[in-house]
């Protein structure tokens, strides 16, 4: 039996190191959010998140997400179709730019929008002349959020599209279905779980966006401040409870995202 116990000991050591690392880097900090938020009781927590500035921040964040997600979903489906089904010159490059938001710093995104829509930006003059506010207003925040959450639907749908192949779609067209009908009745049902995953990931990313939005929104409390910016502002104003309370909210959203993904994976497998 010695050979077996030796192997198990090795595995135990790896397990111990892995879990220890996780505890220090991940588990302890996340647990602390909840601890600190409720440190002084439920009432201060509740007060912190129900004050008008916090509720506005939450509403604004949700608003931006509700705009960004459908747009990115529509784009994601079209883009995935373009990548998998149609041969467009420069496909590799397009692929790379779709994935870029995953590898790019959010401050570069913020800077880019600043350079386009700022006072001295490419469109700055035109916008001022026509009295349109993009920067430090909702439009810029939406653009920034769309940029950073762009890839998720595409990445989820592309492999599924590739896997199902064109057989069914070809069969449908030989039976007389137009392209739109084929898409609606054949393609769409096949990719619905992929879309669902993509939507959840896009939403999570949008709700949690901070860096790019910080640059383009101005962060005016009660006006252009998202929930993530509220966390930072509260902390810098020594409102610890406020910062942690908002953090708890965001953490709960994150956990809900993970739960949704897990539940959907179950449903997907059974389907």
């Amino acid at each position, binding site marked *: *039996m*010695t*050979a*077996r116990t030796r192997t198990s000991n090795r595995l135990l050591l790896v397990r111990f190191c892995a879990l220890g690392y996780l505890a220090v880097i991940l588990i302890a900090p996340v647990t602390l959010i909840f601890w600190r938020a409720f440190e002084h009781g439920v009432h201060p927590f509740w007060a912190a998140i129900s004050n008008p500035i916090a509720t506005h921040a939450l509403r604004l964040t949700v608003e931006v997400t509700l705009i960004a997600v459908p747009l990115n979903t529509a784009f994601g489906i079209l883009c995935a179709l373009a990548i998998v089904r149609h041969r467009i010159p420069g496909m590799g490059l397009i692929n790379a730019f779709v994935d870029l938001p995953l590898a790019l710093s959010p401050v570069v995104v913020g800077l880019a929008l600043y350079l386009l829509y700022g006072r001295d930006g490419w469109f700055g003059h035109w916008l001022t002349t026509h009295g349109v506010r993009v920067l430090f207003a909702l439009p810029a925040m939406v653009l920034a959020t769309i940029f950073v959450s762009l890839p998720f639907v595409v990445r989820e749908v592309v492999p599924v599209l590739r896997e199902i192949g064109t057989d069914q779609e070809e069969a449908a067209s030989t039976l007389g279905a137009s392209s739109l009908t084929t898409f609606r009745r054949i393609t769409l049902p096949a990719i619905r779980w992929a879309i669902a995953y993509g939507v959840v990931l896009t939403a999570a990313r949008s709700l949690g966006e901070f860096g790019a939005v910080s640059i383009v929104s101005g962060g005016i409390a009660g006006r252009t401040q998202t929930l993530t910016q509220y966390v930072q502002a509260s902390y810098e104003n020594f409102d610890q409870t406020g910062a942690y309370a908002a953090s708890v909210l965001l953490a709960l959203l994150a956990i809900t995202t993970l739960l949704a993904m897990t539940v959907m994976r179950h449903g997907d497998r059974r389907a």
Partner: protein
Amino acid sequence: MAIAARNVTKRFGDFVALDDVSIEVKSGSLTALLGPSGGGKSTLLRVIAGLERPDSGQVFISGKEATALAPQKRGVGFVFQHYAPFTHMTVFDNIAFGLTIRRRPKAEIEKRVEELIELVQLPGLGKRYPSQLSGGQRQRMALARALAAEPEVLLLDEPFGALDARVRKELREWLLRLHERTHVTTIFVTHDQEEALELADEVVVMNAGRVEQVAPPRTLYDEPANAFVMSFVGPVNRLGDTWVRPHDIEIRAEPNGSTSEAQVLRIIRLGFETRVELVREDGEHLHVQLTRDEAEQLELARGDIVYVRTRRERTFSTASA
């Protein structure tokens, strides 16, 4: 005695894979473990190799107890059903692996690997990768790899299962010749009774985790120990407790004292052999196998009434079925 397993039992959860199994394999022999899927043959092979640890029982290799030994130390060569090639290494490196691990000098490794490449007939393919070989070539590479470190025992787990019929036949002959050359004690697992009967010196028939019979192929066929062995090893007619081989049923045009009446239902002509399906008076169906000449002599046609008699039969009480 090259290999012995004594009272080996192995469970996977509730499933009993091996139930008090004991076998002995003679040194230098070619032995088959034959049986249906799930019967325990692969499990027994893996227990002998040390890839599974038995719940109880002992394993002996070359007279020494090996039950607690890790597979690295047992001196067995194992060939997997799907060959388990090291896909990231060349054919040469695959075959050389056992020697590389043992830190043999480079010159020795090269010589031995070249010998083996010649032995298994893969000339000039040393620099290729497994993904560039055909199924049969990969199988031969797997064999060479297992033989490289000169194991005392060679274990083959359904070695030809993943190949198409023609390649399988070729490799069977080839394995036989290889064994004649190297005389390494070899055990192979198969569910194909033709393969077992063709190749093995001795066959161990296993079913549901138990050994049904151990015998040379001829004995297995002519004197099966029970109904299971008889029906597994070849086609058979069952008439209550009596079991008869299709070629042991005689068809006559005229009755004599010991025949019973039957009607011809179907005649299938397969080149040299003709198969006839009959139904007896008492409703029992019979499948008979005749040579082409015998069938022609009788001038059989559908619907004919003929008279049948068994030449040899075996009786097993229902308990053993």
